[in-house]
């Protein structure tokens, strides 16, 4: 079991973000570039921005500008770096194996099932790949989940139980009935009789399932009545994408 590292490695929410001084950004970037052999032009582009430290967006992120490769201005350089590191053919898109690689470099090893779920929720249309801005949205989302996980793992065990899960989902605006939580948690019950607890990977998976299905439900209940009426076709089409092997 990987040791649980409490240092958030994804950028935290913008309001908590304390801009690092350019020197510390430089030292980490040197480390990464050295290990991963970036092309010279990419290095220069990003490094020169750090050196000048003049163009900061309102969130305090250095403005990556023209070298961002499709990322919106103000995207955190670590996100750009992670994307570019796995997009080896510079296609501007990454598919699930590359996403898995990016995630395991910065977090822990995520199960392929969670990776696929993330891919499904953040990609546009029928594509099997995600582009820079989808990747950035996914990364920020994971950062949020990480912050929530830490906040609700009150005993710092590195795991979240059913009550903590309920509270965590509630804090995100999802009032999940206890009956539903039971079904969710049963997936992770190994039959040993011990209380079921989730690690971060499983927590993200649970959260994404609830988020995804709730959003689908809300699309069909535009007047917020709490009820949705569906055709057979709509019903199946809503759910089948979540049945990810």
């Amino acid at each position, binding site marked *: 079991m990987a040791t649980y590292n409490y240092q958030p490695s994804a950028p935290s929410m913008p309001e908590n973000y304390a801009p690092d001084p350019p020197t510390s950004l430089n030292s980490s970037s040197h480390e990464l570039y050295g290990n991963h052999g970036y092309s010279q032009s990419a290095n220069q582009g990003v490094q020169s921005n750090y050196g000048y430290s003049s163009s900061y967006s309102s969130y305090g992120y250095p403005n990556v500008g023209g070298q961002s490769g499709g990322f919106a201005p103000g995207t955190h350089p670590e996100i750009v770096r992670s994307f570019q590191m796995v997009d080896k053919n510079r296609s501007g898109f990454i598919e699930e194996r590359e996403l898995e690689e990016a995630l395991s470099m910065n977090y822990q090893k995520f199960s392929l099932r969670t990776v696929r779920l993330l891919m499904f929720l953040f990609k546009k249309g029928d594509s099997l790949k995600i582009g820079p801005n989808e990747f950035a949205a996914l990364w920020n989302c994971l950062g949020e989940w990480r912050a929530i996980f830490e906040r609700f793992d009150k005993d710092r065990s590195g795991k979240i139980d059913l009550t903590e899960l309920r509270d965590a989902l509630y804090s995100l605006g999802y009032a999940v009935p206890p009956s539903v939580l039971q079904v969710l948690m049963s997936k992770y019950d190994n039959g040993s009789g011990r209380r079921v607890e989730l690690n971060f990977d499983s927590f993200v998976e649970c959260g994404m399932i609830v988020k995804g299905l709730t959003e689908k*439900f809300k699309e069909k209940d535009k007047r917020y009545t709490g009820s949705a009426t569906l055709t057979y076709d709509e019903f199946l089409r809503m759910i*089948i994408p979540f049945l990810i092997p």
Partner: protein
Amino acid sequence: MAGIVASPNPAPFGSVFPGSNANPFASLLPSSFPTGTPQHIVDAFRYSDKDGNGFIDDQELKAVLSTCNHGFSLRTVHLLMYSFTATNTRLMGPKEFTQMFTSLQQWRDVFEKHDRDRNGKIEFHELQQTFQTLGLNVPTAVLNLLLLKYDRSGKSLALDYDKFIECCITVKGLTNKFKENESAATGLATFNYESFLLSVLPFVVA
């Protein structure tokens, strides 16, 4: 179902199973073999129940299904257990096991009937017909979605027996959930937030 080995040790008189064939009260007990259960199913149950606790758990079921020359995924096992016990506890007693066993035999027949070239796989274009044989009218848009789920490479994929069972249970199970909430007048189903999640989650989390 080919490959089930009969138990080498016939159960002694005074079987641990309260609902053995001879028991006239079998139908009143929570989970027992219905009267007239074929002996080979009873034997299959005993063979599968490795820890002898009177129940079959998911690992035991996976092990016994996998010995029948197909590797069964744990997900398919969970789906099977859910459909025959209507719970997420992943334990099966004799009664549920018997129902499942019979269903698997029926699915096996359907699979073999549609696997015309006997390569152990059903081509995707045969799936719609297969569903119809099982009484399911699956819209083409849904079949395309299923295709997208199983065929990530873009090459035309066929379903092996395990995936076929997974696919059938899922479509059949979700269809039943829909029907439970369907209004006969409109053909539409109404769910509230909780009933929606409770209906679909067992298939998502299997």
